[in-house]
């Protein structure tokens, strides 16, 4: 296969807090090929969003600190880019959809104002950035996310739209000018289930139609199974398992993945799902060795002392666990 569109190598992200550095990301590796749909799965607070926000360099300034790692976009390190190159990536390369559509839209500007600016500053030629052309692009994008009456929507303020419509508008803004990679940060989580499903289908359709790559952040294995080709399972700032989607469900290996799978309630009944005991560790004092060991049913002495690295078990199925 050709070179990946995006490759994250050994990414560490720390947050400054009053208690010292909160070491959230602990060496994340991830890559996406052109046209590939990748899932990033893990429970809340495991660093999924942090990973993706560092890709666009929109982590809170002054708090986030990246001690090591690389984020390569077509081989160029985004973390070392000058403002101009970074702008290029943001306007032409990668766009992101946020978890909370209500928070991701500015409440005091109309949808139109916000969309027009996204188009206007996306590095169009002079001819293309004429007002009527910008409006045409915006209307086209709104049509593409299946919202009727785009002209009216452009004059609406975000609070006049429903949650599902807001998220569609966010998607429209992310695809309104051509981009190679779309990062969707739990786009359905704040919506109710039927709308959630519509939004996911819409995303998949658009990504396939425009031949974009997709990174889908989700805490739901079901969503990942439906939408992605390959899944990264993340726990406490580490990727613990990578596999093709079908492989992961057929043959899950990491104890955490097994735990996640057993947390899904089954339609066949059989009582409450088992789940995983305990919770995400304190990032100020993360456990040594494997960060999952305090919650792991199969932890041995070695897990407490040494950090397991991803091992390839063939066919791209990688696991970071000594016990597999």
């Amino acid at each position, binding site marked *: 296969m050709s070179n990946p569109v995006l490759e994250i190598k050994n990414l560490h992200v720390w947050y400054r807090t009053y208690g010292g550095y909160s070491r959230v990301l602990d060496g994340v590796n991830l890559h996406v090929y052109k046209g590939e749909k990748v899932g990033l799965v893990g429970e809340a607070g495991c660093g999924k969003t942090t990973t993706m926000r560092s890709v666009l360099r929109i982590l809170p300034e002054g708090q986030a600190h990246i001690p090591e790692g690389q984020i390569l976009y077509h081989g160029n390190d985004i973390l070392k880019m000058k403002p101009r190159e970074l702008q290029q990536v943001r306007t032409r390369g990668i766009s992101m959809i*946020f978890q909370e559509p209500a928070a*991701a*839209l*500015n*409440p*005091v500007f109309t949808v139109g104002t916000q969309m027009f600016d*996204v188009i206007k500053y996306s590095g169009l030629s002079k001819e293309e950035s004429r007002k009527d052309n910008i409006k045409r692009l915006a209307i086209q994008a709104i049509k593409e996310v299946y919202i009727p009456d785009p002209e009216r929507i452009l004059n609406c303020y975000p609070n*006049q739209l429903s949650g599902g419509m807001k998220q569609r508008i966010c998607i429209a*803004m992310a695809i309104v000018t051509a981009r190679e990679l779309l990062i969707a940060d739990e786009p359905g989580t704040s919506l109710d289930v039927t709308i959630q499903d519509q939004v996911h289908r819409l995303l998949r359709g658009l990504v396939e139609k425009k031949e974009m790559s997709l990174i889908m952040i989700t805490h739901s294995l079901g969503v990942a199974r439906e939408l992605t080709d390959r899944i990264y399972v993340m726990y406490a700032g580490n990727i613990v398992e990578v596999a093709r989607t079908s492989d992961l469900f057929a043959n899950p290996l990491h104890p955490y993945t097994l735990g996640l799978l057993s947390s899904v309630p089954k339609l066949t009944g059989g009582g409450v799902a088992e789940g995983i005991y305990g919770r995400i560790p304190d990032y100020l004092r993360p456990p040594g060795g494997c960060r999952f060991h305090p919650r792991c049913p199969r932890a041995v002495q070695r897990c407490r002392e040494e950090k397991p690295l991803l091992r390839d078990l063939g066919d791209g199925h990688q696991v970071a666990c000594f016990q597999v």
Partner: protein
Amino acid sequence: MKLHSYLLRRLLLSIFVLVGLSIVIFIIARVVPGDPARMALGPRAPQFAVDALREEMHLDKPLVAQYYYWIKGVATGDLGRSLVTKRGVLEDIMEFLPATMELVMVSAIFVIVFSILFGALAARYKDKWVDSVIRIMAYTGVAVPSFVLAVLFVLIFGYLWPVIPALGRLSAGVQPPVSITGLLTIDSLLTGDFPVFWDALKHLFLPALALAIGPIFQEARIIRSAMTDNMGKDYVAAAVGYGIPNHIIMGKYLLKPSLIPAVSVMGLDIASLMGNAFLVEVIFNWPGISRYGMEAMLRKDLNAISAVIIVFGLIFVLVNILVDLIVAYLDPRIRLGGKL
């Protein structure tokens, strides 16, 4: 749009506010010790003259009756006579109010422009030296009362370094324009008299600045904290992520939502300048209503006190309605939320 009915409701409500205010100030002015008639006529006036004046002013009747006579006059546009200037209070107010209005309006322009400028700069360069300099200026600016600044300005610009006039509304020998609005700058513009306009503007600069500095920095701090607060919002991260340039984000997407909390405080601050201008008016020898009202209080000039307070109350009410309209303009959630 229910703007009309909203405005109507607010105006009706403000009538009650003003009536309440008139009762309060009417009582306060009268329970303060001292006989207004005696004070008006002086200690050596014969008792019968004082009694005659008391009767004329209805001071010999119970408070309720006094209020009735007074409010009846007010309703018909007769605010009574001033015991000090011996003229109709309305006439006095018409003479002194425009000077203060002009001063406060120029102050308001200073407040709006510089508070936004300083607030945005401090937020943009948060925790950098620009922010620290503005912070120090802000603490000083808020802590130093305007009359101290006024004295300093008069000392510096009136005496040590006379580059800009520090006293009065116009230079000696300058013929004031025909009074149309009473605001010298506007009247001179209307009559096309640009030298007078320029002279009036120069005279406004120092007193307006002395009044404005406190509110400028108070509002700048509010704007700064609102902006730094909003910087952490997803919509800002999203805008950055879409590649929208920084100056557009700061000056547009971050500034507008951040102005909303500042506008309410700004409105009240600017309205309070009317009353707080007293010492500044005295120091700059500015013939304004604040000074007039304060003198009325010291001399227990009942009609003048009540009238001045009612005028201030009216201005507060109007400014508050204006503020609500501006906030509604800035924030569609309020404008379109149905509960305007």
